[in-house]
């Protein structure tokens, strides 16, 4: 048998490195992962910007967006997003002429009931709702 220095040197180096470093795996959920900037997570719809054109619903490849009429608002209403169908391509953000839909870095969207996965921002329109409550709807 030949001796294969490449492997032996690597084995020793890897052993040393692994002894000094923390494991390659992540300790989720004890430690939350670092989400890079621009991650395509859960949507945020800024209803102030939305004009109700419905382009997001029309272009959505998964049929996840429905326009729901809201009294007192122009156009087709506001988008309601079913995260259970969403494929997170963010074509909606691309189609939106006003830039009202944006991805956030919220990655954990598990729910017991599929109905809880519907992202409905309409409560934000109520006068009593506080702005910036991005945990509303869905969670």
């Amino acid at each position, binding site marked *: *048998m*030949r001796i*294969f220095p*490449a*492997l032996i040197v*690597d084995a020793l180096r*890897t052993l040393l490195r692994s002894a000094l470093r923390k494991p*390659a795996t992540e300790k989720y959920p004890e430690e939350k992962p670092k989400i*890079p*900037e*621009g*991650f*395509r997570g859960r949507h945020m719809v800024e209803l102030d910007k939305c004009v109700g054109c419905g382009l997001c619903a029309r*272009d*959505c*490849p*998964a*049929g996840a967006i429905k326009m729901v009429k809201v009294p007192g608002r122009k156009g087709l209403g506001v988008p309601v997003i079913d995260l259970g*169908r969403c*494929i*997170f*391509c*963010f*074509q909606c953000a*691309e*189609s939106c002429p006003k830039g009202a839909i944006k*991805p956030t870095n919220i990655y954990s969207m598990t729910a017991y009931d599929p109905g809880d996965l519907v992202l409905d921002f309409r409560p934000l329109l109520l006068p009593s709702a506080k702005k910036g409550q991005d945990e509303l709807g869905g969670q």
Partner: protein
Amino acid sequence: MSEASAPGLASELEKAKEILAEALGEELSSWSAAGARRAWADVATGAHVKAIRALKAEFSELRLSGLTGTDLGDELALYYHLRLGGFILTLRMPVPKSPDGPVVESITGLIPGADLHEREAFDMLGVIFKGHPDLRRLLLPDDAPEGFHPLRKEVEARTLRAEETTPILSPVVTEEKGPIVTLIIGPQHPALHEPERFVFKVDGEVVVGMDIRIGYAHRGIEEAAEHRTYIQDLYLCERVCGICNVAHSLCYCLTVEELLGLEVPKRAQFLRVVAAELNRLHSHMLLLGVAAEEMGFTTLFMYIWRDREVVMDLMEMLSGNRVISSFNRIGGVSRDVGPGLVEKMKARLLELRKRLEHYKEVFETDPTVLARTRKIGYLSRSDAIDLCAAGPTLRASGVDFDVRKDDPYAAYEEISSFRTAVRKECDNWGRYMARLEECLISVDMIEEALSELPGGPVKVKTSRRVKPGEAVCTVEAPRGELLYYIRSNGTDKPARVKIRTPTFTNLAPLRKMMEGVYVADIPVTLASIDPCFSCTDRALFVDVNTGEAWSCYIDEIGRRLRR
């Protein structure tokens, strides 16, 4: 498509035209060249054999890139996409719908690799290929009713019912004469990562023949694409294959952009190269890890997959997700990169290159790897061409062909660090080494593309409707040449989308490689073509539980699954 042609391309195109005119005479009704690298020829029904024979005599490396069957309403049409070096010549041939079924002559005698292509056309459209050695169904159940060909316009979807078919498992005729034994692997088997069925004829420990049955992961993508808009189809095509999603979305975008006559900004083209090469790294490292595992070298598998995380992280930084990138858009890319990100990516690539160089050394010297891969699964150069191999499988048999070099797209023409990884070994080891070399070249190319990123916008506005026309584009996917053909009819939905994935065309060469290998080497040989069966199976839904085949809008899938 690039207009700056390699020297001699125009004369090659002219030569092909002359050969066709001479061989066919009156039977060649029209010829048109679209750019320097695409040519379309209308030939009379039945003239394709003469045409291909004449072309093959002159162009020794002629391969069938794809065979598109399409239903035009009154008649069927077959499109033979022939790869002649730097350009694709498409022979358009009408096939009349006759009561006893449309019949054309098979070209398997000239190009043995056309075998599965013709079977797919038979299965989907009912075209009968006279002289085909084994014209059976390929994707639908073997006992699907006669005359049920789902891409025919007159066939109603959902007419195939549970009681009419059994789940796609045809009985195997075991003709065990003498020592030949039939060994069936799959569709469900611990050695397979995807559901496919292999029937091996084994003489003792040696494989003497192989039959493959695909279709277990069929999802109806080609049919579904006809019912959705161009924008929605982008995400559908991206999901043909999860691993090489950038190649699929890029090829789709290139084809639609060609139909639209759209010029993509320079910066977007460079970013497309970055995404496509990251995707290649991801796919190759995944395969090399799987190969190591198949060899019984689990440690190497763990190490390669650990280092693959670097690529996944880079993809996440670039596109916002680890696997499905959704980076390519019609008219450009979805987002720009900032200077900070470029530096971060370059730093991670340095670390990755060191690891890849090390793995190359391991694959070159390690006794386990060498013993399990060298001189196993031999595919000669002439067989690779005749059987229409693609990608690293072709290059490892000594053919210097790479779509990035011969038919450049995106910014590949401007990347100087690109070179093809051609190996002469023709065996499993050669195919793995070709991929390892490609990984290192990819790292160089990403670095160069990031350093020389031109300024400007990353996307241009496009229209939703596409004017009538047809286009064919190819991309060098990690597994080889990927072909998309799209015909538009002036609406916002395509009239036909044909996808020919590299694994599909690599199955015929695989059959050849398997001849003479030991049973224990089957998984390593199978892995050497980097098979991806989910992209090979498309076009129609087959519900294995009920045996019911159907095609529908994507919206309906969820509803059906919940039932």
